[in-house]
């Protein structure tokens, strides 16, 4: 939370950011980034399939491992992908040369993405770049083999990347509208990756209330990645701060077993319109650290973007070192309860307490009170969000019972 303008000397040389898409799925993500390409971000795609590569609109594209696959793809064999990558090691080294921050996007479970990603990440890390990978995981219905390949790939990748953000396909399709096609679901994944990359880009290249620089970013990801926490939230309108926190909390990526619920190193970036004040930032930070790791080493950035008007976006990325036997995992479900049990018992009759809570729920449903931002305290009501609460003995019965009791539900 300290502004350090003098560290921005690097500005001259600029931070070199690069996104490399691997294989079919990875290339698609990069293709999408093309459409809204933030300046200063270099895009490349790599594939073992020459034909698929030809369809990509990205200018910097390379077919690797021709000597091994003949340009016909890896055939779903990660070993083939890996060999292809090793065969063209020189090309990969060249791609990673002079890159400060490398994003790798790939679909795990296939040949190219799964095989090439760890090799590329390793090369990039050795050349001194900070490596963050976004990988999609196959659908459960694609069955055991693909899933096994993907899990193995994920573990390898975790060993060599600074952060790995897995996006389970099951979740993606579920988050999209019921009638949506598979393509829509994938574009949702691409949109998530795009947001994350843009958010980090904005952090590095735009100035704002609290500036972040590359060395801080590097510090946040200094350890090799274990489980990574990754969440996005957005909100707009008068009550943008509450909404953005709510939306972040509901971000589906925070609720899968693939993700850590607490992190040792937390990187938070807040992008808001001109109306975003330092007190808002403070409030968001308090909530986020409460939620994701009180003892975390938190690095935050806050950027003002005039185009956003009353909109606020948050991106949270956190890492923990798994091998250290992190005590931070999965404590989320013990958080709920709160407000209810904490109501002061010393003064005031039962009626007072009920009244108080009634007031609270009432206020929250109207979304008017600024003090009631309640991140931990807000309770999901789903379908009954807008209905008058059913208060019994100081609890709103519309909130799921398991949630009020703090019962942990395995997914």
């Amino acid at each position, binding site marked *: 939370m300290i502004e350090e303008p003098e560290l921005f000397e690097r500005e001259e040389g600029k931070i070199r950011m690069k996104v490399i898409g691997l294989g079919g799925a990875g290339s698609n993500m990069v293709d999408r980034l093309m459409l809204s390409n933030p300046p200063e971000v270099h895009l490349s795609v790599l594939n073992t399939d020459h034909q698929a590569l030809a369809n990509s609109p990205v200018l910097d594209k390379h077919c690797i491992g021709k000597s091994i696959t003949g340009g016909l793809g890896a055939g779903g064999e990660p070993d083939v992908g890996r060999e292809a990558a090793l065969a063209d090691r020189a090309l990969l080294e060249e791609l990673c040369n002079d890159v400060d921050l490398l994003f790798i996007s790939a679909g795990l479970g296939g040949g190219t993405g799964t095989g090439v990603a760890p090799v590329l990440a390793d090369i990039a890390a050795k050349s001194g770049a900070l490596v963050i990978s976004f990988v999609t995981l196959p659908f459960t*219905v694609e069955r055991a083999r693909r899933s096994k390949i993907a899990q193995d790939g994920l573990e390898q990748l975790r060993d060599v990347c600074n952060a790995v953000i897995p996006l389970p396909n*099951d979740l993606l399709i579920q988050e999209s509208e019921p009638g949506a096609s*598979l393509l829509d679901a994938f574009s949702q994944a691409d949109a998530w990756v795009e947001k994350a990359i843009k958010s980090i880009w904005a952090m590095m290249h735009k100035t704002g209330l609290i500036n972040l620089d590359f060395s801080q970013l590097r510090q946040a990801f200094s350890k090799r990645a274990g489980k990574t926490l990754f969440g996005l939230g957005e909100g707009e309108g008068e009550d943008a701060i509450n909404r953005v926190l709510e939306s972040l909390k509901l971000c589906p990526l925070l609720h899968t077993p693939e993700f850590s619920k607490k992190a040792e190193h937390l990187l938070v970036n807040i992008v808001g319109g001109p109306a975003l004040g330092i007190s808002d930032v403070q409030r968001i930070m308090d909530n986020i650290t409460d939620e994701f790791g009180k003892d975390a080493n938190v690095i935050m950035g806050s950027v003002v973007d005039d185009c956003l008007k009353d909109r606020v976006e948050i991106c949270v990325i956190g890492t923990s070192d798994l091998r250290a036997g992190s005590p931070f995992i999965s404590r989320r479900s013990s958080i709920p309860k709160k407000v209810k049990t904490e109501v002061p018992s010393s003064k005031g009759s039962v009626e007072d307490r009920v009244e108080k809570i009634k007031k609270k729920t009432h206020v929250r449903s109207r979304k008017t009170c600024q003090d009631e931002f309640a991140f931990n305290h807000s309770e999901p009501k789903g379908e009954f969000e807008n209905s008058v609460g059913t208060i019994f003995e100081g609890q709103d019965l519309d909130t*799921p019972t398991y949630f009020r009791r703090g019962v942990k539900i395995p997914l």
Partner: protein
Amino acid sequence: MHKSKVIAGVEIGTNKVAVLLGEIQEGKSLNVIGFGHCSSRGVLKGEIIDFYEASDCAHAAILAAENQAKVKIDGVYLALSGGHIRGRSSEASVNITSTDGRVTREDIEHVSAMAKERDLPENCAVIHHLRRPYALDGRMVEQPIAMEGERLEANYWTVYGDDRIISDAIHIINGFNLHVDDVVLSGLASSVAVATLEEKKNGVLVIDIGRGSTDYAVFMNGRCMSAGCIPIGGDHISNDLSIGLRIRLKQADSLKHRYGSAIVEHKDKTEKVWLNNDLEIGDRLVPLWSIEKIVELRVRELFNVVRKKLGALARPERLPAGVVLCGGTSHLRNIEICTADVFETRARIGDNGAMASEELRDSQYSVALGLLHYGLRYQNEHDHVTQRNRGFMGKLKGMFQKV
């Protein structure tokens, strides 16, 4: 044909609108002559949240019933439910002043009127005054007339609700150019159909768990001692699953029907079931334990709330006939085991077998059937010149109806 009257029992529920038509002949016998139903829209937690949508559904159901029976409806009995409904007990007592020290009809009328007089909170209207047994010098008596004593106490369980919400429901029926003869608490209506007189004599608790709300009524010595409504129902189970498992409401609904259980049967947390079970893209495995745990916690809590609301009335020794469950959510697997566990007495799933043909046996028509039964008794009382004690029929009557 003369002296026959067609009445309709209408329940505008969260899941469906159910309508039954009954023909009352000579004010004595009741024949069910038509039924209609329509899935509901615009109703949440038992209350109308979208007047026009709810109205359309109700009209469709009434029309279907009318067309089937090819008759015109003379009057409607309307079921009420929802979180706005409250209950409290109202007591009053008088000294017996007659020279021979015996209770006269005037004493009873006087004490009853006094008990019913108590003010209600603002914007509230009485739905029922349910009379509990009289007490004469502290002794419980069913009918104190001509008995000797010094002090007569009357005790009513008064059920009241938000008059605006009640009028909304009545307006829906009026909007179809029909007259609402009376409004009846859903839980009372369904208890008429699913619990036997014998059970009510012994002591029984009827719980009607619908999609949006749960109605309950407890009986002792054949009289309703307390009745109420909790705006929690099957929708809440689905909603809990949807939030807990991060799935869509529709998927949650389907999981509830396929795997929902009111007690955790599968203790192995690693056992999993397919979410959509269509083996299509997007399908995934969900731990069975999680589903059952979420459902059990909700159902158990619901029963505990009912038990707490009833207080001493729900003690197992007061309910020798146990608990009778009805309503859509009573189809949930193992729900009777969970009920028996919470109330420490036996529990069964009720149906309308005792008073309806095979077709109307399922408890989804319990409320409508109970309403017709109410209508019959109401009719009887009007036909009798000597209007004796009207029991729990004495109530608002026409209070909200359009002039």
